[in-house]
């Protein structure tokens, strides 16, 4: 079961947030923004505090909690895709990459979208919901 999807811009702004299933606490619009900003900061630090010397680490990729797992995929351009799912849900990495596909098609190729701004694109919504349904969200 997939609870929600977040897309965070390279500057730490929340570009997209959607809940698919009940299960997590509901936050206010402002709290979602704070969540995105906070996660963005933590993500940057987690790559710096690697205990392995002389090698570079990615930022946080998977966060495990007792009631959910949070998966983060950062693109080469710095955009972060977050999926919060049931701890038992497999193959979220694949879902994240396909989310990125849908994003590059229906957001980046949309002439009415301004980069880094919140995503309000009907086709993106439709296709994300379709994708999540497909993977048993």
């Amino acid at each position: 079961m997939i609870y929600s999807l977040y897309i965070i811009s390279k500057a730490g702004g929340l570009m997209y947030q959607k809940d698919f299933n009940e299960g997590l606490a509901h936050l206010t619009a402002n709290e979602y923004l704070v969540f995105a900003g906070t996660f963005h900061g933590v993500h940057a630090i987690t790559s710096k505090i690697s205990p392995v010397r002389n090698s570079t680490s990615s930022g946080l990729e998977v966060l495990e909690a007792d009631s959910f797992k949070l998966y983060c995929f950062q693109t080469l351009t710095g955009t972060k895709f977050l999926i919060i799912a049931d701890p038992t849900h497999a193959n979220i990495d694949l879902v994240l990459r396909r989310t990125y596909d849908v994003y590059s098609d229906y957001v980046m190729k949309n002439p009415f979208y301004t980069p880094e701004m919140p995503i309000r694109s009907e086709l993106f919504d439709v296709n994300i919901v379709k994708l999540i349904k497909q993977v048993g969200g």
Partner: protein
Amino acid sequence: MGSNNAGTASATTSMNGQPDGGDLGGSPPHSAAANNHLASHHSTTSQLTSATSMFSDSRLVNIEEESKLVYGVVRTLRNLVNKLSGNQDGFISYRTSNYKLHYYETQTGLKFVINTDPSTESLRPVLRQIYTNFFVEYVVKNPLAPVGHPGGEGVNNEYFKAAVDKFVKNLSFFDS
């Protein structure tokens, strides 16, 4: 935000059983060293060397810096998780491409952290053992250790260090 937290909350806070308090100063170098003794036991060989070297003065500044960051990250993530899941004690671990950080928080607000390679299973039980078997035994029950361990005082004792060191080295996945 994480770094801000790390900056204001001294490393002693996590030792003091006061979950979110930031008012306990403590002398930074000592608290950092002690905190790392507890907070960052590394389980691969190379990591363990660094754990040992944590107590040498040469790396003190880096360690202090790092422990603040670790504390900030852990505290922020714990708050995020608790907010989302609505219950306390939800944060278990996170991993990046080359390490995994395991987290355990006691009822009294002490935070235990251990870093491993990314493929290691959850070490929450191990952290719990370190708490009950070693921290309680060698630190809490030590009459010479002051209450609340200001500046990490009392944590950094030889029994505790040796016992934890031995315990971690003997874990089945320590150098696998």
